């Protein structure tokens, strides 16, 4: 089961790395931001899997923090950008 979970975590990490192409290519800032948001969700999934592999419930707290603060950067982006183009 552990090998299996590691394989899934590796797969999720690879999907983040593939998504980086969108960040590098853009072209719109909104899309780069969106990709970062997507990776936040993937990181939470990896953390959930790691918490099972490493048998450490403290990792769930890290995931809670990620989940709660996931929108902060995005809100900052939207607010600052709307002051610019309004």
């Amino acid at each position, binding site marked *: 089961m552990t090998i299996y979970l590691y*394989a899934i975590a*590796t797969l999720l*990490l690879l999907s983040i790395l593939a998504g980086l192409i969108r960040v590098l290519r853009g072209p719109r800032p909104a899309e780069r931001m969106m990709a970062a948001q997507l990776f936040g969700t993937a*990181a939470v999934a990896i953390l959930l899997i790691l918490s099972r592999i490493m048998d*450490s419930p403290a990792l769930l707290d890290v995931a809670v923090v990620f989940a709660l603060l996931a929108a902060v950067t995005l809100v900052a982006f*939207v607010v600052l950008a709307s*002051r610019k183009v*309004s």
Partner: protein
Amino acid sequence: MTDAATLFDLLLAGSVIALAIASLTVRDMFAAIVLFVIFGLLSALAWVRLSAPDVALAEAAIGTGVTGALLLKTLHHLRYVTGKLGEGQARDLTPIATVPAGVIWANAAFCGMITLGLALAFLGAPQAGPGFDSLVAEAMPASGVDHPVTAVLLNFRAYDTLMEVVVLLAAVIAVWQIERGLSDAPAPALGEVWQGFARLTLPAIVVVGTYLLWKGSEAPGGAFQGGAVLAAVGLLLLLSRIYVPRPAHRGLARWAFVLGTGAFAGVALLVSGGGRVAFEYPAQHAYSLILLIEGLVTISIAVTLAALFHGREPVAAPAPEGRNDT
């Protein structure tokens, strides 16, 4: 099993380094910021793999809650200064004055010296030494708390932690020196979905921040993590203009900045004397004193980090047409 773990760790380490290089070298500044945010995300995972959930928590809170928003605001200021506010022009954003080559080389030399020093210290350290694990484990009963990291930070090594709090204080003093006054930006039209989100999430963030502080005495968590999480609430309030700072609030904010440092240093001095040195808490009060310090330091950290974000924003030239999609 080890192979699967090694593969995952190698991939993670490789991605962290690749992201660091990418965010330094990419030409588009906005992309650099996004890459840096993702770098923070993956380094939090790396700290998890290094069995350092305390650091992972701090990185998660600071990286996702504070750094991204601060960098985006900096970019916003830069665009205002250079007069390039259009979305499409972000790519060819250049600083107004080029940095002199001398400064660049001096910086490079300093960075090189620091790297060299770290490398020498690393190579000179005893290989596979016992570390401090046994020392800390031995002294734990006298520390007043049950979590080794908190014991080290707030008790055994409290001087260092006090200095870290002072660093934050110095940062906010520097930022407030160059601030241009209070923000007069209009409240952004974020819509009803955002309002529902704020009503639901902001209280939850406050609860989780306090929980992390409270839990710090027995498990990963503590003042820095709790403070950074609470600071995110401040950022969201400031961004959405739910809270609008007034000149009269300045005094209060300044008291909040020094509260943590003052309480920390105050307790350190008060417990000294009578044969004890500074930071040598009396054993029966150690837990309450550490909790008191952590609580006040949390408030200071939260207000300080949020205050770094406050300040007037450059206002764009009036747009030709009003916003009509609300």
